[in-house]
């Protein structure tokens, strides 16, 4: 069981740091096409910020509410990734061939760019939720009453 951290310094600093980490994770996610980074790293950073809030403020802290809610999103990222591939099938092409995404006002290269953005969001969601889920599984083994999140 993880309780809230005692030190005021840690709590104050993490209150400042967690939003910054999340902001940077979104920057990494949406600028993965232009700079180093991408969905996987962004997902890990997002998950790490949620884990950080759980470790510092404890499971009952109000800052950990988002981490608890994140557990309900297990598999959403995978569905998003595979769903983009399915949309390509519906558009009349091969699985995950983004030129067949049926967005009529975009040309082929822009459709592929859109497909890359959507699948990166899927990867980031999947990785973030999985990281939080593994930490919850590891940290709350013995406590039955903590598992209803």
């Amino acid at each position, binding site marked *: 069981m993880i309780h809230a951290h005692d030190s005021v310094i840690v709590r104050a600093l993490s209150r400042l740091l967690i939003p910054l980490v999340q902001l940077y994770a979104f920057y990494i996610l949406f600028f993965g*096409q*232009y700079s180093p980074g991408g969905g996987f790293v962004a997902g890990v950073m997002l998950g790490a910020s949620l884990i950080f809030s759980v470790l510092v403020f404890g499971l009952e802290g109000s800052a950990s509410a988002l981490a608890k809610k994140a557990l309900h999103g297990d598999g959403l990222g995978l569905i998003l990734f595979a769903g983009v591939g399915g949309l390509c099938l519906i558009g009349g092409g091969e699985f995950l061939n983004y030129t067949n995404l049926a967005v009529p006002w975009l040309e082929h290269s822009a459709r592929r760019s859109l497909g*890359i953005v959507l*699948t990166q969001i899927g990867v980031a969601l999947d*990785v973030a939720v999985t990281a939080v889920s593994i930490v919850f599984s*590891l940290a709350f083994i013995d406590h039955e009453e903590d*598992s209803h999140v």
Partner: protein
Amino acid sequence: MTYSFEVPLLALLMITAAGAILVKDLISAAFILGSYSFFLALVWAWLGAVDLAFVEAVVGAGLATVFFLLTLFQTDPKDHSIRRTTPPLVALLGLPTLGLLLLYAADDLPEFGDPASPASVHVSPVYLENSLQDTRTPNVVTAIIMDYRGFDTLIETAVVFTAGIACAALLRKTRT
């Protein structure tokens, strides 16, 4: 080619790797492994693989250390410390021989950054020349892993998802 930067970096890599193996306490070993991942990330960045350095720094030095520590906190203190026995003679003789054989074989590898090596004449030029107008994505690594090799990434995402599901199924108590 000067070796002013790479020799200390590789020496630090070897020192941290040996430290993670030789240290008596598993929690210390987890921390040393985290620092090993950080130095490895520096090596990737120095080789120009910045995307990989990012992943190594965030996953290896950050998340994996947290996972190790959370796992060790669930165990008893007597499980943390390791009592080591001397390795058998076969391992002491065989593994250095294997290392020497690998060093001997490393002579035949193409030189780093060689434009005529098989890896850089097969499909790499196609990606490098076409990815910008094909996908409007300046970062060619993202274009490759998300578009050209999208199916691989889909299966990798499925692997990550399966890991989370397996942890939950094995470790969490069932609610009755």
